[in-house]
C-alpha cells in the first residue's frame, strides 16, 4: 500500500470508530421528543417521572422529525418518545398494518405503546377568523368555491397519504398548496401571505391568532391519539421507567394540552417548567438555562462538530487529491464522487446516516466530513495539476524520487490551493453544522430551531449570530495559518 492510500485507509478506520453508535447495557433511559413544542413538553414529563424513580435518564429534546426519531428508537439509540396513533398507522407502519392490530405490528419491531394519554391531536384546516367570516367559510367543503385561496401546509402534511394529497382528493379541492415549516406557516397566515394552513387540534396558536378551525364535514382526518412509544426491551431493563410512562395514561385532555402548549409558546415558559407545573402544581418553578453558559455549551458542541469533521476531511481529502492528480481517469471519478456527495441535501444525508452511526453528533460529523471532502480534494488536485511542467522536470532532473518530489516540491507548491480548500470546507462546516440540531447534536442550530418553534426572534439570533461570528473567526484563523505556512515566494508580489 502506498503512503497516501495507507493514510486514507487510516482516516476511514478512525472515522468509522469515532462514529460507532454506543450500546451500553448500564446506560441511562433515553427519552426523545420530536421537534415541536407538544412533543418536547411530553418528553420533559417523561424525563421528570423517570428521574423520580431514581433511574438515570437523558432527554434528547427536539431530536428531529418522525423519521429520525422512529429510526433512533428502532436502532436502540432512544428508548421512549411521544407519538400519535395516526402517525403510526397512516405513515410509519402504513404498509405493514393491513388491518392488523397496531400493537402486533409494533411488537414485530420490538416496540410497545402505552394507552392514550387522553388527547387527540388531529389535523385540521384553519383560516383567520376575519377572512373566513368574510368569505363565509365554515367547513372544509366550503373551500371548493374559492379556488384562488393560497394553501400553505407543513412539509409532513404535504407528502403523506393522509395529508394534502388525500384531503385534496377527498374534498375535490381545486387549489395548489405550498410546503412550509409548521411554525412559519402561522406567521404566513398572520401576515396575509397564506389563506389556509393546517393546524393541530391542540395548537396554542389557534387561540392566539384568532383562527377559525374548519369543520371536517366529510370526516377525512384520522385520529391522532397521543401515546408513548417505547422499546419492548425497556420492560426488562428498566420496568420502573415503563411504569412511569403509564402513569401519564388518560391524564391529559385536549384542553389541558392546549393550555400547556400555550404556557410555552405564548407565555414563554420553558417546556420543563410547563411539564413540571402540570405534574406538580404549586411546586417550585424551575430556572431557565443561564444565557452565557448555554452559549458556551453550544459553542463547544458546534466547534467539536466542525473540528472533528474538518480534521477527518483533511486526512482523507488530501491523499485523495494526490491520487486524483496522479491518475487522471481515477481523478475525474474521485472529484465527481465528492461532488455528488455535496449535492445530497443535508437533511436527507443525516437521515441516511442515522441507521449507520446512530443519532447525536456522529451522523452530523459524518455528514460534515462528507461535505468537507470536495473543496479539499478539488483544490489539492488543482494545486498539483497546476504545477508548471518545467518545475516538474527540474525536480525529476535533480534526482528526487517520486515521494521526495511530493514532499519537498509538489505539496509545498500546491499548499496555497490546499489551504484555500480547507478554508472553504471550514466555512461550509460551520454553516451546515446548524442542521445538527435536527438530529440531537446540539450546537448553534439548537437555539435557531427552538426560536423558530417558539416564534422567538431573539432566540434565533442567539444561534445565528454566534454561528456567523464563528465562520468569520475560523476564516481569519485559517488566513493567519496560511500566512505562516505559505512562503513569501508563492504569494503575489507587493
Amino acid at each position, binding site marked *: 500500500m502506498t503512503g497516501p492510500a495507507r493514510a486514507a485507509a487510516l482516516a476511514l478506520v478512525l472515522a468509522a470508530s469515532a462514529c460507532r453508535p454506543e450500546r451500553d447495557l448500564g446506560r441511562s433511559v433515553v427519552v426523545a421528543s420530536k421537534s415541536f413544542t407538544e412533543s418536547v413538553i411530553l418528553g420533559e414529563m417523561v424525563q421528570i417521572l423517570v428521574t423520580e424513580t431514581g433511574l438515570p435518564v437523558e432527554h434528547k429534546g427536539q431530536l428531529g422529525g418522525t423519521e429520525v426519531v422512529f429510526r433512533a428508537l428502532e436502532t436502540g439509540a432512544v428508548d421512549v418518545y411521544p407519538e400519535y396513533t395516526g402517525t403510526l398507522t397512516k405513515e410509519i407502519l402504513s404498509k405493514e398494518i393491513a388491518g392488523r392490530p397496531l400493537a402486533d405490528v409494533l411488537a414485530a419491531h420490538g416496540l410497545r405503546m402505552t394507552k392514550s394519554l387522553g388527547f387527540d391531536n388531529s389535523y385540521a384546516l384553519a383560516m383567520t377568523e376575519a377572512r373566513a367570516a368574510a368569505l363565509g367559510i365554515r367547513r372544509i367543503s366550503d373551500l371548493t368555491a374559492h379556488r384562488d385561496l393560497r394553501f400553505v401546509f407543513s412539509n409532513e402534511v404535504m407528502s403523506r397519504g393522509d395529508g394534502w394529497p388525500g384531503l385534496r382528493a377527498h374534498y375535490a379541492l381545486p387549489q395548489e398548496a405550498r410546503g412550509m415549516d409548521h411554525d412559519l406557516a402561522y406567521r404566513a397566515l398572520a401576515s396575509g401571505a397564506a389563506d389556509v394552513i393546517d393546524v393541530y387540534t391542540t395548537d396554542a396558536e389557534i387561540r392566539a391568532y384568532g383562527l377559525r378551525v374548519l369543520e371536517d364535514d366529510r370526516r377525512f382526518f384520522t385520529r391522532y391519539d397521543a401515546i408513548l412509544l417505547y422499546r419492548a426491551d425497556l420492560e426488562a431493563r428498566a420496568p420502573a421507567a415503563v411504569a412511569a410512562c403509564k402513569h401519564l395514561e388518560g391524564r391529559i385532555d385536549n384542553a389541558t394540552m392546549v393550555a400547556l402548549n400555550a404556557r410555552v409558546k405564548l407565555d414563554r415558559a420553558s417546556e420543563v417548567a410547563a411539564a413540571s407545573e402540570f405534574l406538580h402544581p404549586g411546586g417550585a418553578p424551575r430556572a431557565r438555562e443561564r444565557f452565557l453558559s448555554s452559549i458556551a455549551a453550544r459553542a463547544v458542541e458546534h466547534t467539536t462538530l466542525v473540528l472533528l469533521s474538518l480534521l477527518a476531511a483533511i486526512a482523507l481529502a488530501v491523499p485523495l487529491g494526490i491520487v486524483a492528480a496522479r491518475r487522471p481517469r481515477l481523478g475525474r471519478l474521485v472529484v465527481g464522487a465528492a461532488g455528488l456527495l455535496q449535492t445530497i441535501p443535508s437533511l436527507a444525508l443525516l437521515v441516511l446516516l442515522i441507521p449507520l452511526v446512530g443519532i447525536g453528533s456522529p451522523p452530523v460529523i459524518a455528514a460534515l466530513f462528507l461535505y468537507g471532502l470536495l473543496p479539499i480534494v478539488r483544490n489539492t488536485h488543482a494545486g498539483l495539476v497546476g504545477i508548471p511542467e518545467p518545475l516538474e522536470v527540474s*525536480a*525529476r532532473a*535533480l534526482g528526487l524520487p517520486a515521494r521526495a518530489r511530493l514532499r519537498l516540491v509538489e505539496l509545498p507548491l500546491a499548499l496555497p490551493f490546499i489551504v484555500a480548500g480547507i478554508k472553504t470546507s471550514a466555512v461550509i462546516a460551520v454553516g451546515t453544522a446548524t442542521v445538527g440540531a435536527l438530529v440531537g447534536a446540539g450546537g448553534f442550530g439548537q437555539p435557531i430551531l427552538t426560536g423558530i418553534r417558539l416564534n422567538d426572534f431573539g432566540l434565533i439570533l442567539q444561534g445565528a449570530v454566534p454561528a456567523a461570528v464563528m465562520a468569520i473567526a475560523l476564516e481569519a484563523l485559517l488566513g493567519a495559518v496560511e500566512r505562516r505556512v505559505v*512562503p513569501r*515566494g508563492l504569494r503575489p508580489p507587493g
Partner: protein
Amino acid sequence: MELRLSKVTKRYAGNAAVDGIDLTFASGKTTALLGPSGCGKSTVLRLLVALVTPDAGEITVDGRALPAHDVEALRRRVGYVIQDGGLFPHLTAAENVTLMARYLRWDPARAAKRLDELARFPADGLARYPNELSGGQVQRVAIMRALLLDPEVLLLDEPLSALDPLVRTELRDDLRAIFRSLGKTVIIVTHDVGEAAHLADVVVLMRAGRVVQQGPFATLASAPADPFVTAFLATGNGGSRPAPETRG
C-alpha cells in the same frame, strides 16, 4: 563520464524531434548543441537524463545502456539546468541550491560550506525568493543548484536566451570561467552562434532532428559541410535573425 547516443530516434505525436542521431560527448569537453528552434537540441538533453525514453536506438553512459542504470543516482551525477532555470518559487535561492542536501540529510554545516564554495553571487541575494531575483541571478542560482553534488556532467539549456545583452555577456564570460576551472563535461544548448563559438570546444550543428556537422567552430566556419552550415553561421541563428554583435 562518457555519454553516447547511437541511432537514437524520439518522436512526439508522430514527428521525429530527434531522428536517428549518433553523438558522443567526450569527458572534460564543452559541447554546444547549436541549431534553430525545434531542431531537437533540448530533446537530446532530456534523453541523456532519461526524462524521455528513445523510440529507437540506444543511449549509453560509461559504456552501459541507460536502462541498466539507477536513473535517480545517474541524475545526481549530472547537473541539468532547464531553460529559465526552473527554480522552485516556494524556496529561497539558498534553499533551492541546497534542496538535494536536505533530501540527502547532509548536516547543515556541510551544506552551508558547500553553498559558500558555490556562491557566485552577493550573499544577501541567497535569502531572496526567485520572484525577487533578476534573470541573471536566477540563472546563476540554477547553475549553483546543478553543481551542488559536484556532478561529472553539466547540461545547460539556453542559459542565456532570456537575458538582456549586458547581463548576457557578463554571464557568458562567467560560464566560460566555470567550465575551464571545473574541467567537467559540459553540454550547452543554444541557438546563438556567438555563444557556441565563445563557449564550446566542439560545436554540433543540428537541423530537423539530425546532425548536420560537428567539430571545432573553426572547422565548421572554414569547411562547411553544406550550404545550411554556411547560412546558419552567417546569420547567426539559421537565417531568421541578424547575427549578434558580440562575438568574443
